[in-house]
């Protein structure tokens, strides 16, 4: 019987009522008295030397409050990078300055040159058009491999080159890996591109800066996945405002997918300008601005090689990747192709020797950073593609080849520095074969053939490292912040509860799932519990939501705080019932004394805590509110097996997805419906990457895909009905909920399944090919068939 409340119940998402009825409170809904509006004048060239920015005519335009240029930010900090990678020679990465407004040079189309603050958004835009500027266009570097040539133009003149870092992982293993390749019975090599994506959350970015002269306090309202992180980065590194004078609020946020993790120039600008002008300053991105100023994702060019012995055991893996950083280092950019990518290269397989090389490269493009999955989709894609190619070359069944090499014993130490705590890869593959009805595939293929269509099947597995945390571990890997989470459980006198969490919900359904956990622990109704998030003034501390960490880390902090509440409440209950604390039990919202029929209700205890007439004041304080910080000992390792069936129209190259099945192991599940939704959305984005999406620049650095006319987002009719299963559960061993995280799995696991399926379909039609680069648009597939 499915549960109807608490952990394991598919409670309906309570936040959806306000989202669907138009009463959400998004940043753009915030309008403050006396608010001015900013319009950014953005570079229309990819690379150029700024000779002159003359604002005098524009200043005289009606409604202009003030115009800022790069010069106004002399002495103000630049946008910081939160992660430092050490290269294979032990040297720190090259780290360029990133001014809030361009100084001296513009480095990508969309780089802000000036900011006009005016009484209305339209007046700001009018005045921006009147700014006279003179920029000498310089040759742009767009292609990564050309960018690292010695004679390439430099994106940053003060750096030695466009190479941010050359990272080897694990460098000491390289000789052994190379040797294994020499001894291999078979080597499969695959060169591929992991296409550049633009996240496109439904809500574009917005920032409202406010300043209170009376108290010298600044407030920033912003579309962020992690307001405390923005407070830290902007306060400490850019504007020099201490935490107690800076409040950051991220109210309802309409999707993030990673791109709203980072600290952006517009946030710093609005906060800065609000102080300078002593009035609120608001910016709302247009969709066109979003395309050229939101951090992009992926953009790797990779060569991967897999060595096998004569029995088809994987003996070694070697990869060589170029990772695009764009023109500046976005907040977590350096970590994505390294620690979120190299550490996952073992996948679900017991390959004993692995070497990963990553060259991170500056180009005249928008900065690139984490996008749903961040590094892990790139790792999974190349690994699962090279395995399929090996199966083709060896003439073996791709599922059998995988099964043969699965890790089966846990905990498992990979050769790439992580230790998987639990997993059962055969179990998820078994489940997949069942739900995807793989045994019926040949019949379906015949039926497709009768309609003139080529049908293909693609199967793969994935592993991810989620619950991004262990502060001590990420610190060793270069993180400049800790990655714990905090929660405060505030029990009110009547027994209702506000849980302040540092996790941020921007679509994930925390307001529903988190109360299920607390309600389950206390045995009270979920409706008595509300989640408070997204405001540094209301939540003590937080590291935010990304890397599928909210439940595993934030939820665990909440469990710890709730445990503290229960301990204290039991003391109060013991006093009320004149019993020993050790004998108190809490069940279904009732405190009882073991072996007696004495009981007091949850509400009696909470009331006593705040009306301490009959209360052990000498032993405990009044009130019932507890805070916990949780910092786990390891990542969590969700895994799964995915299957995709496609049809290809051989005349046009058009691919349609006919079936898609996902068998995931997320450990324990709090709300199965929300988990289904997360997987559905993730697969939708993965299908988007595989078939539709692809950010393209021309050789001059102009963004070709600058609108939805050319950037293809997946739509409802691009995706099939999914078979999703998460009944295979190997709970995480090191967090109190046994949960692993489910937010990114779909986006990580699905692209290789789609490409494997298309390759399989085309081969069944006699096309002797082993790879097509994403997105597999009709024209690319047709091209590949007719090459």
């Amino acid at each position, binding site marked *: 019987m499915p549960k109807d409340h608490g952990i394991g119940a598919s409670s309906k998402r309570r936040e959806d009522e306000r989202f669907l009825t138009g009463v959400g409170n998004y940043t753009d809904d915030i309008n403050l008295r006396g608010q001015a509006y900013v319009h950014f004048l953005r570079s229309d060239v990819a690379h150029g030397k700024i000779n002159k920015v003359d604002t005098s005519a524009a200043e005289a335009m009606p409604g202009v409050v003030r115009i800022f240029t790069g010069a106004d930010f002399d002495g103000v900090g630049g946008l910081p990078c939160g992660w430092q990678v050490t290269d294979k020679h032990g040297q720190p990465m090259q780290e360029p300055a990133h001014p809030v407004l361009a100084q001296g040079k513009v480095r990508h189309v969309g780089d802000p040159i000036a900011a006009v603050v005016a009484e209305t958004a*339209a007046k700001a835009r009018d005045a921006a058009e009147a700014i006279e500027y003179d920029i000498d266009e310089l040759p742009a570097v767009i292609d990564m491999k050309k960018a690292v040539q010695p004679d390439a133009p430099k994106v940053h003149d003060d750096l030695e080159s466009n190479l941010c870092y050359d990272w080897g992982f694990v460098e000491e293993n390289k000789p052994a890996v190379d040797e294994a390749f020499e001894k291999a019975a078979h080597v499969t090599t695959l060169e591929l591109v992991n296409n550049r994506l633009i996240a496109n959350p439904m809500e574009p970015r917005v920032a409202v800066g406010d300043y209170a002269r009376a108290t010298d306090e600044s407030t920033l309202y912003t579309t962020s996945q992690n307001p405390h992180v923005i407070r830290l980065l902007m306060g400490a590194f850019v504007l020099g405002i201490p935490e107690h004078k800076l409040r950051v609020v991220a109210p309802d946020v309409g999707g993030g997918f990673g791109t709203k993790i980072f600290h952006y120039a517009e946030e710093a600008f609005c906060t800065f300008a609000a102080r300078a002008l002593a009035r609120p300053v608001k910016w709302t991105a247009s969709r066109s601005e979003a395309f050229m100023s939101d951090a992009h994702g992926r953009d790797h060019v990779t060569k991967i090689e897999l060595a096998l012995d004569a029995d088809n055991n994987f003996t070694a893996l070697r990869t060589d990747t170029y990772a695009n950083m764009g023109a500046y280092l976005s907040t977590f950019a350096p970590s994505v192709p390294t620690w979120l990518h190299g550490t996952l290269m073992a996948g679900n397989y017991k390959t004993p020797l692995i070497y990963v090389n990553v060259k991170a490269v500056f180009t005249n493009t928008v900065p690139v950073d984490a996008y749903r999955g961040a590094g892990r989709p790139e790792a999974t894609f190349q690994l699962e593609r090279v395995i399929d190619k090996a199966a083709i070359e060896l003439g073996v069944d791709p599922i059998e080849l995988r099964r043969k090499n699965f890790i089966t014993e846990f905990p498992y130490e990979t050769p790439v520095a992580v230790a998987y705590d639990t997993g059962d890869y055969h179990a998820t593959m078994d489940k997949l074969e069942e739900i995807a009805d793989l045994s019926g595939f040949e019949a379906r293929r015949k039926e497709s053939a009768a309609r003139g269509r080529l049908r293909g099947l693609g199967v793969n597995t994935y592993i991810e490292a989620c619950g991004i945390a262990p502060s001590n571990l990420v610190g060793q890997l270069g993180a400049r912040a800790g990655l714990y989470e905090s929660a405060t459980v505030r029990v009110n006198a009547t027994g209702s509860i506000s849980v302040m969490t540092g996790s941020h919900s921007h679509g994930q359904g925390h307001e529903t799932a988190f109360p299920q956990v607390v309600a389950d622990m206390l045995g009270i109704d979920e409706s008595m519990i509300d989640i408070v998030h997204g405001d540094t003034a209301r939540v003590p501390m937080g590291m935010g939501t990304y890397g599928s960490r909210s439940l595993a880390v934030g939820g665990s902090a909440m469990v710890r705080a709730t445990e503290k509440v229960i301990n204290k409440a039991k003391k109060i209950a013991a006093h009320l019932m004149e019993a020993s604390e050790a004998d108190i039990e809490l069940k279904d919202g009732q405190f009882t004394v073991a072996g007696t029929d004495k009981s007091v209700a949850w509400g009696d205890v909470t009331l006593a805590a705040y009306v301490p007439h009959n209360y052990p004041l000498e032993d405990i304080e009044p009130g019932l509110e507890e805070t916990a910080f949780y910092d786990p000992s390891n990542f969590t390792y969700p895994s799964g097996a995915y299957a995709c069936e496609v049809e290809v129209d051989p005349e*046009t190259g058009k691919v349609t997805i006919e079936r898609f099945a996902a068998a995931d192991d997320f450990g324990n599940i709090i709300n199965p419906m929300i988990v289904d939704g997360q997987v559905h959305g993730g697969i939708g984005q993965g299908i988007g990457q595989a*078939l539709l999406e692809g950010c393209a620049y021309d050789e001059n650095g102009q963004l070709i895909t600058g609108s939805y006319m050319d950037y293809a*987002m997946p739509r409802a009719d691009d995706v099939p009905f999914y078979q999703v299963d998460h009944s295979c559960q190997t709970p995480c061993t090191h967090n109190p909920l046994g949960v692993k995280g489910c937010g990114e799995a779909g986006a990580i696991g699905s692209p290789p399944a789609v490409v494997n399926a298309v390759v399989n379909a085309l081969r069944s039609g006699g096309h002797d090919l082993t790879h097509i680069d994403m*997105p597999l648009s*009709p024209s690319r597939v047709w091209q590949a068939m007719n090459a």
Partner: protein
Amino acid sequence: MYNFDFVKPSSIKEAVEALGTEEAQALGGGQTLIPTMKQRLAMPAKLVSLSGIAEMKGVGKNAAGELVVGGATPHATVEREAGDYPALAELARHIGDPAVRNRGTIGGSLANNDPSACYPAAVLGSGATVVTSNREIAADDFFEGMFTNALEDGEIITEVRFPIPQAANYQKFEQPASRFALVGVFVAKLKDGVRVAVTGASEEGVFRWGEAEKALSSDFSPSAVEGLSVSADGMIADLHGSAAYRAHLVGVLTKRAVAAAG
């Protein structure tokens, strides 16, 4: 967007007068013009809305048996009311999304003559007549290349007259992002022969594929166009498809349109 004046006349005569002033521009459904103005790429001083002119709206039939569509008729109305010309109703049904179809008009589409738009293929493929505020223009004389046509300044498309073919079909192969036609082929079997009009493919905009018309006029079957091909010269090449791919699609879609027209 810049400021502009707005008028909404209720007759063609008033509209023509209003358009006589400097920098005035007709507004159909605004599905192309308004986004262009928002991007500040167009800046008319005055918009003359055609949506209040009853005589320019609706679908009917004239004495000659032609289907007559008012120049300010939204796509959704054509979709619902052009039952006498099913291929045309079907074409309208696949333009954009419901919002676009409820606002966008046939007159706006033809006046704009986007090289990837659908209506130009139907108009040229049917051999329709474009009726304007001061003349009648045969489809063959109307389209003059990408975004250009025979309309003069201030001239309004008031209606389009479609001869109803014995059989017709439009095959639209969607560009994955915009879902306009990457290539679209309209095939119509009329009493004096077959017409094949191709949109989306050529740098010259919508065009007739003469070779296929000839073959189909003597044998209206998919096999009649088997082996025929258009040259890739002058075809559009972009992110979404090479010139060769577009040329190839013209052949595939023509065959499919004939098969579907039956």
